[in-house]
C-alpha cells in the first residue's frame, strides 16, 4: 500500500491536524508520501520532513497554488494519484474543498470525516449529528478519505523524510485567488487547543465574549461559540463548534451559556472533561458535563477570572 496525504499548511508552517492524519495513514499501513502544494512553502516542507512515519515530502511550490485553489490542487493531485492506493486529507475547509473534486475526477467515492480505521478498506464515520456511527467498506480501487483530526493522536516528529519537487504547474484558470482575510489571534488554534471555552446565545452579545477571552488568556484556552452565537452575529463563523462547524476534543471544554443541542455536542462531546455553566438546571448540556455550575454566567465568569 502507498498512501498520499495532502498536508494542511499555510506555506510557512504545517498545521497540527496533518500529524493526526499521518497517524490514521499509519493505521492503514504502507509507505506514506506527504504533498505540500502552495507558494513559497519551503518552511512548511522542511517542517514536514521531520514528521515520523513518512517516506517522502512532495513539494509543489508554484504561484498557481497560491490560495490552494481546489481546481489547481486537484489537477496536481491527479497527476500523481495513480501511484497510490489511498489518498487522505485532513477534514478541514481545504481538505473538504479539494478531495471530493479529486474523487470525482478519479471516478471514486469518498468517505468524509473518518473517525476510525478498521482495516485498509473499512472505516468508521459519524452521521446524523453524531447519533450514529457507521462502519463502511470501500469497494473502490483507490480509497479517498478525509480524516477527523480529534479521533487520531498526532504522530511524532523525529523523522527525516526526503524532500522532492513535483513537476507541473496546473493552472486550470477556472478560478482566481483574490485574498485571504485571516483572523489574527494570539490564542491557540481551536481544533488543537488543550482547553476550549465556548460561549452560546446566553452571552447576549459580541462584547460580552471579552469575558470569555479574559478567562481564556489566563488558562491558555481557545475561544469557541455555538451556531446560535455565530448566527446572531456575536462572533465570526470560524469560531463555531459543532456538526456544521469545527470538531474539537480538548482536555477541557468549558461551555458557557450553551444549551447543549445535539448539533453542538457533535462537535465537542469527545472532550476529556466537560464543564457547563448555565442558569437552567434542565439544560441538556448538563447531561454530558462532568462538572456543572447552575448559575448566571455574568456572576460566575468574573468569579472564575478572579480565582484563576
Amino acid at each position, binding site marked *: 500500500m502507498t498512501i498520499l496525504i495532502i498536508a494542511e499548511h499555510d506555506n510557512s508552517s504545517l498545521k497540527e491536524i496533518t500529524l493526526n492524519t499521518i497517524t490514521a495513514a499509519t493505521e492503514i499501513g504502507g509507505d506514506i508520501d506527504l504533498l505540500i502544494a502552495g507558494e513559497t512553502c519551503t518552511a512548511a516542507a522542511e517542517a514536514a520532513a521531520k514528521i515520523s512515519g513518512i517516506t517522502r515530502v512532495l513539494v509543489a511550490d508554484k504561484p498557481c497554488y497560491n*490560495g490552494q485553489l481546489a481546481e489547481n490542487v486537484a489537477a496536481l493531485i491527479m497527476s500523481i494519484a495513480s501511484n497510490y492506493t489511498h489518498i487522505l486529507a485532513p477534514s*478541514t*475547509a*481545504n481538505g*473538504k*474543498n479539494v478531495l*471530493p*473534486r479529486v474523487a*470525482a*475526477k478519479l*471516478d*471514486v*467515492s469518498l468517505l*468524509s*470525516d473518518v473517525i476510525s480505521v478498521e482495516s485498509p478498506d*473499512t472505516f468508521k464515520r459519524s452521521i*446524523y*449529528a453524531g*447519533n*450514529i*456511527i*457507521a*462502519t*463502511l*467498506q*470501500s*469497494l473502490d480501487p483507490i480509497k479517498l478519505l478525509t480524516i477527523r483530526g480529534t479521533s487520531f493522536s498526532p504522530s511524532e516528529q523525529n523523522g527525516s523524510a526526503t524532500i522532492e519537487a513535483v513537476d507541473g504547474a496546473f493552472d486550470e484558470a*477556472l*478560478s*482566481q*485567488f*483574490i*485574498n*485571504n*482575510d*485571516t483572523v489574527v489571534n494570539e490564542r491557540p488554534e481551536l*481544533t488543537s487547543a*488543550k482547553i476550549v471555552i465556548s460561549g452560546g446565545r446566553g452571552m447576549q452579545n459580541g462584547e460580552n465574549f471579552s469575558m470569555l477571552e479574559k478567562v481564556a488568556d489566563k*488558562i491558555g484556552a481557545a475561544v469557541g461559540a455555538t451556531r446560535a452565537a455565530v*448566527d446572531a452575529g456575536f462572533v465570526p*463563523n*470560524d469560531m463555531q463548534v459543532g456538526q*456544521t462547524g*469545527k470538531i474539537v476534543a480538548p*482536555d*477541557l471544554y468549558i461551555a458557557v451559556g450553551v444549551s447543549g443541542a445535539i448539533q453542538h455536542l457533535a462537535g465537542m*462531546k469527545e472532550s*476529556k*472533561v*466537560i*464543564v457547563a455553566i448555565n442558569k437552567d438546571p434542565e439544560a441538556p448540556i*448538563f447531561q*454530558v*458535563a*462532568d*462538572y456543572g*455550575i447552575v448559575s448566571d454566567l455574568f456572576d460566575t465568569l468574573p*468569579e*472564575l477570572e478572579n*480565582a484563576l
Partner: protein
Amino acid sequence: MKILIMVKRVTDPNVTIRPNTDSSNVDLTNVKMAMNPFCEIATEEAVRLKEAGIASEIIVLSIGDKQSQDQIRTSLAMGADRGILIETDATLEPLNIAKLAAKVIEEEEIDLVLLGKQSSDKDNNQTGQMLAAIKDWGQATFASKLDINNEKATVTREVDTGLQTIELTLPAVVTCDLRLNTPRFASLPNIMKAKRKPLVVKPIEEFGLDLTPRFKMLNVESPQVREAGDILGSVDELLEKLKTTEGVL
C-alpha cells in the same frame, strides 16, 4: 442567466436517529423529514439573484423518493420557477448524485449551480465539489457572500482561519454556508401558487448511468453515551476538581 439549485430531503434535524434492530442500517420508519437547511440557503440566494434581475430562471432539482416533491414545492414557494425530481428509492452516494446532476445540466444550459455545503443527515460535504469536477467547472465552497458581475462570480468563502475571496468564471458551482443569507418563509399565497408551477418527475433509469454504490454499509451503532457528572456549588470547588481530580488545569 439560468440557475440550478439542488435540494435534498433529509431527516428533520430535531429527530434522534437510531440503528434498526439488526444494526444493518438506520431506522427511518415514520421519521419526520425536512429540507436540508443549507438547501434553503441555496434557494434563497437564487431567488435574490432573480429579484435583482441577474437570474432569469431558477430550476430546482432533487434526487430522491416520491415525497421529495414536498421539498421541491417548498423551493418553488420560495420563488424557484420549476422543478425536476429524479425519482429513486435508493440512497445514492454524492458521486452518483453529482453524475445525475451533470446530466440534467447537459439538457438545461445552466450558468450557475447553487447547492448546500453539506447535508445535515450524512454530512458528506461532497456533492458540489464533485459536480464541479465532472463538469470541469470552477467551484466555490462554503460561500458567505456571492456577487455576480460580467460572467464572473466573486465569492467569499468561510475557511478555517477566516475568510477567503476568489473569483470564478461562469458557469460554476457554489455551495452555500450558513451566513450567506437568512432564508425567507414562503407565504401562503406563494405556497398556493407553487402548486401550479411545473414539476417533472423522471425515473432514474432514464439516465442510463451505472450508479452502483462504492461503499458497503457493514454496520451502524449508537455512540457511547457520556454520563452526567456533578453539579458543583462554587467556582472554587470547580477549580479544585479541575486541578486535583482531573489534572487539566
